[in-house]
């Protein structure tokens, strides 16, 4: 199972966390160094690490598109089957997108290869064991994470890394 990327969106429809694990086939740098950005503003540090293929979108643009997709699909599902229903995941020919939304309208999105089964419980675990523990309970991080502030602290990053490694 391969995890490609991971996004968190808050209830204000803003992307507050992005994490990408580069594809071995296209990477020119070692796989152990993931490209991380918590906001568009910090992309400058990873400009040198941008994947070589020309047609790739910047991470901020990708996040915007991902949000548009999940928000539309989530509303579509609720329209079709009632507000009790919730969108779980979708699969294309090349990747699978898993979605989990908390009751506080925090949205977790993970893109993986197509063989992965539904990651709803894994995303729930990330919420319970990583996000709540290292972000919400950190008194020095703000409650609203405009631009991703306060989310990408070290403990959270390490937690995400090792969690993904265990499910990989």
């Amino acid at each position: 199972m391969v995890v490609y990327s991971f996004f968190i969106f808050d209830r204000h429809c803003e992307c507050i966390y992005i994490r990408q694990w580069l594809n071995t086939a296209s990477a020119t740098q070692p796989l152990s160094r993931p490209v991380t950005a918590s906001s568009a503003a910090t992309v400058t540090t990873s400009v040198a690490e941008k994947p070589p293929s020309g047609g790739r979108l910047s991470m901020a643009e990708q996040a915007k598109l991902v949000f548009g997709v999940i928000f539309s699909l989530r509303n579509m599902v609720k329209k079709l089957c009632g507000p009790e229903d919730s969108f779980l995941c979708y699969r294309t020919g090349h990747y699978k997108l898993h979605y989990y939304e908390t009751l506080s309208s925090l949205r977790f999105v993970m893109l993986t290869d197509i063989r992965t089964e539904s990651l709803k419980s894994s995303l729930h675990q990330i919420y319970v064991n990583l996000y709540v523990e290292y972000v919400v309970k950190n008194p020095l991080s703000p409650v609203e994470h405009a631009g991703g502030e306060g989310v990408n602290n070290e403990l959270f990053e390490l937690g995400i890394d090792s969690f993904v490694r265990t499910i990989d």
Partner: protein
Amino acid sequence: MFLFRLRSSRVFSLAVTMVVYAVLILNKAGGLIYQRDFNPGLQKLSSNDYLILAGTFHGVHAITSQISPTNETSSSGLEVLESENFVMRCFQTLTGTKFLIFAEPRQQNLDVVVRRVYELYADYVMKNPFYQIEMPIRSEGFDRHLTSYIKPHQ
């Protein structure tokens, strides 16, 4: 040609456990050209709601191929959508028409259903010379065969 005709006139039936909720067909531009409920499971929506849904889905489908994290040059769009209460198979033909099949979750052989619906479409819709392409489908033959395939005991 003769063999093909023979095959398409045989009776196909769904596995007994299959429950298909609805079938939607979208044309190349994302316009809704067919919508039919077969079994209860989805909410009752107005025809306007379905039109909007179709248009939105058409846009979403296009974006799903753009956000592919792999570096494949030709990325396909969304093929399967899962929610707690239904699963949807989206089949896009090489001509750009999309077939959306809604069924109960954990269905195994939706691919078979999709292929069959496409075959029926190719026969009763496309081969009808009076059908205007990209326009809403109003074919009694298509309706009849689709219904007897999806709900064979009614």
